[in-house]
């Protein structure tokens, strides 16, 4: 079955540093979504990527979808304490809306 793998599972970042989290699927995806979950909160939608090779930016966040539509990455520049949380990628392949979530990358930021 479809499997979405995400690494690293844990990322400790100094404030101001950059980091990247990676997502890989064993199956070609129709789209990939990224969510952020703050400690004690619920997942909040960040972005959706649909096209092969697509790159989208949201301020300090850059999202990429691989050419083969099997991998994706989230790169955050100049990390701030507000970036703390767990970032999940979620891939989708079939038509009835099932999202396959990755394990998540828990980000801890030290000042």
């Amino acid at each position: 079955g479809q499997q979405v793998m995400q690494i690293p599972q844990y990322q400790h970042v100094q404030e101001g540093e950059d980091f990247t989290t990676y997502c890989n699927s064993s199956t070609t995806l129709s789209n990939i979504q990224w969510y952020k979950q703050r400690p004690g909160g619920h997942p909040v939608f960040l972005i959706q990527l649909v096209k092969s090779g697509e790159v989208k930016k949201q301020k300090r966040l850059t999202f990429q979808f691989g050419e083969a539509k099997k991998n994706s990455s989230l790169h955050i520049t100049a990390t701030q304490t507000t970036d703390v949380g767990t970032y999940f990628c979620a891939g989708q392949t079939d038509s009835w809306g099932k999202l396959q979530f990755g394990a998540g990358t828990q980000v801890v930021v030290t000042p």
Partner: protein
Amino acid sequence: SAVISQKPSRDICQRGTSLTIQCQVDSQVTMMFWYRQQPGQSLTLIATANQGSEATYESGFVIDKFPISRPNLTFSTLTVSNMSPEDSSIYLCSSATSSYNEQFFGPGTRLTVL
């Protein structure tokens, strides 16, 4: 974006009892989903609930244990039946306007079974 509320926000229940979790969306949505999330873990889809049809359950989840209702386009319930401590988890509902659109999540219900 949709705003979703869930009730209760948390509960502590005794083994063998049942709990019904309510999920209310502030707008009409085609699809609603129920997830389970253990602390520090990823989200596991329990079932998809579409109005006017039976819920579709994922592998490992059965209707007898997790009956779902979807009486209209803004509301759904998930019942956790005959609970055991292994059912202790956070239960999240979400909604989407279509199959490929983003999902909006409710705040979750933290369930503890003693």
